[in-house]
């Protein structure tokens, strides 16, 4: 089992992370990677017409607790699916539009486990890991609100029994 969790300011190399998962070898048949990027606008689901140009996104987190929560999430994924490797990288600090912000990579024998686990880890990361985003919009700073859609996305895993 290859598990790698990192909270870091520096950028990551998707190719290097993919190669590391690919080197797992025995039984490997699928790798799913998800990369999240910083959008160049800020929108609000409850105000469909609202859209503002975003210049900077600042990521705060709770050191040590974040890593432990991410580790818990990965452990839960391991109990639900048959996995060979999981990589989670989340960046902190000041980011610009189009910057990479998060990477989830999952390796497994069959694709179903990797697809499902990657989505599960992202859904739980968004609703449970101690990160907070501050957007710099129109020359002003504002802490972003949590989205109901993210809570709903995470909640659906509560009802799904792994087959």
């Amino acid at each position, binding site marked *: 089992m290859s598990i790698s969790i990192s909270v870091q300011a520096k950028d990551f190399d998707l190719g290097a992370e993919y190669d590391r998962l690919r080197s797992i070898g025995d039984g490997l048949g699928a790798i799913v990677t998800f990369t*999240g990027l910083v959008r160049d606008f800020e929108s609000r689901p409850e105000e469909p017409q609202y859209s503002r140009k975003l210049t900077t996104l600042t*990521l*705060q*987190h*709770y050191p*040590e*607790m974040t890593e*432990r929560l991410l580790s818990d999430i990965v452990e839960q994924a391991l109990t639900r699916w048959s996995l060979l490797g999981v990589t989670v990288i*989340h960046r902190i600090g000041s980011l610009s539009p189009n910057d990479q*912000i*998060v990477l989830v990579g999952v390796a497994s024998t069959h694709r179903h486990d990797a697809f499902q686990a990657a989505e599960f880890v*992202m859904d739980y*990361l*968004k*609703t*449970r*890991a*101690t*990160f*907070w*985003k*501050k957007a710099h919009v129109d020359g002003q700073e504002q*802490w*972003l*609100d*949590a*989205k109901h859609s*993210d809570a709903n996305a995470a909640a659906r895993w509560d009802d799904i029994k792994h087959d």
Partner: protein
Amino acid sequence: MLNLLFFGRLGDLASGIDKAIPYHIDLATPLAIRNKLAEQHPLLTKELSEPQVLVSVNKMIVKWDHPLFDGDEVAFLPPVTGG
């Protein structure tokens, strides 16, 4: 002493308050600390009272009536927005 941490928007609202407070039996739960803050920081306390705000002690999520001990780190956590 108790070490208080405020994250996200709570950090802005708590910028002026003392984060290291003497341990006292009357301030031995996160709820008691929240109520104590209400005297001088009503805006912060209002935000802290939102049901989505979580509290952790020594980096474990706990209930608001969790007993505190000298040296504990108490963190107030607004809804997370990572990813």
